[in-house]
């Protein structure tokens, strides 16, 4: 049977994470860079921003342009005809973020400022 097997052995789930309505801000530079990255695929693709455990500060951001996933569980924010998907699981951590874009050879690219973060890693990808 094993310690976790057998009939009549059920376990309660540890409570789900809190969900809030997400709002985000995006700078003009980020809008332009994102629009260029989309390459006209705004109808079929979305920007998916997420956070997950990792990095030196506890959580890491991830941004990806992906084919529109099943929208269930996501909050969808439309910015200049680009749909930004943020999952309810990440809503508390990502609510209020500001997405910026820096055009420089070193340390450039999309960057996220997060009012919920008490600390960020030097590389800017990890926060706590």
């Amino acid at each position, binding site marked *: 049977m094993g*310690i*976790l097997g057998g009939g009549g052995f059920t376990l309660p789930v540890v409570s789900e994470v809190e969900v809030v309505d997400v709002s985000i801000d995006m700078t003009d530079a980020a809008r332009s860079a994102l629009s260029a990255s989309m390459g006209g695929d705004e109808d079929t693709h979305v920007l998916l921003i997420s956070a997950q455990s990792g990095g030196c500060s506890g959580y890491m951001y991830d941004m990806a342009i992906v084919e529109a996933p099943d929208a269930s569980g996501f909050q969808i924010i439309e910015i200049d005809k680009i749909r930004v998907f943020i999952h309810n699981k990440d809503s508390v951590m990502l609510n209020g973020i500001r997405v910026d874009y820096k055009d420089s050879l070193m340390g450039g690219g999309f960057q996220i400022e997060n009012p919920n973060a008490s600390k960020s890693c030097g590389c800017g990808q990890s926060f*706590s």
Partner: protein
Amino acid sequence: MLPSPVDADNHSVDIMSKSESPKALVFESKSSISIFSGDGPADHLNNILTGDVSKLADGGRVDALVCDSNGRVRDVLSCFGIGDEIIVLGIYENMADTRSLLTAGIPWNKDLVLYDGNDALRHFMIHGEEAMELIKLLYPEIGEFPDNKFVSIGDVIVSKNSISHGRHIDIIYRSDDDSFMSRILENSVDVGAYEEWEVVRMQSRFPSAKEVDGTHLPSDIGLGELVSLNKGCYPGQEIHARLDSRGSEKKHIVTITSYEPIALGKSRLEGGLAIEVTSATEFGDRHIALAVAPKQISKGPVLTSIGQEYEIA
């Protein structure tokens, strides 16, 4: 020199065992018990813990720390691979924070669920120099097993804590299975009370929630061995790597005994060095405590700045 308090290793006070029982004591631990199930729990835990959990296989055990981004210890977790699931033992008082941390960072596209195992499972500890002898008394069929594995005897799993060199054994079993308690009774082995565990753990410098409170570095409280500096990023890794490269571990955990009550908190010793007493309790006509102390404090008798005599072990 002050006499030694109760000591599971030396069996100086016979509080647990009868006749010729091994020099080890049995306690029930009120631990936080969680079960991670679903899509890649080892990879998820590996992003959080100070030890490499990524290769945790069925029958394997990994002990590691949860630290904050300043490198301070928030919890001590023992992870047991059970098929595709992982049993996670932690410190009960830190359970809410740790569970929140473990669930908040689950990727949106991973079907990973954390279950509460506190009612379904029980956790016992055997602690002392002859812990292995005592487990063999209870389970004569058990063989040798390494620190990073556990053995299953029916629904009971038995394994060694990886930093206590065979002197601390964990036993986890289902609450609806009475086979472990039957063996305890058959062999006339008593189960110690919480107050006795407090004395034993202070003698052994075994940290509890009083030390693991988010204010101490791993090496300060004797947990430096649970930090891997080559596994990649985890919260606190930058701090731990910097401390290691600079060789600047300045504190360690010590046991203090005294005939007078030992006050919790910071106190200054004669000569100016300061210690932080994290746990303290009474034992017979004496008092015992754990303290985080500068490494330059040597063993033996010391006086506090107010003239109290402490014995540092």
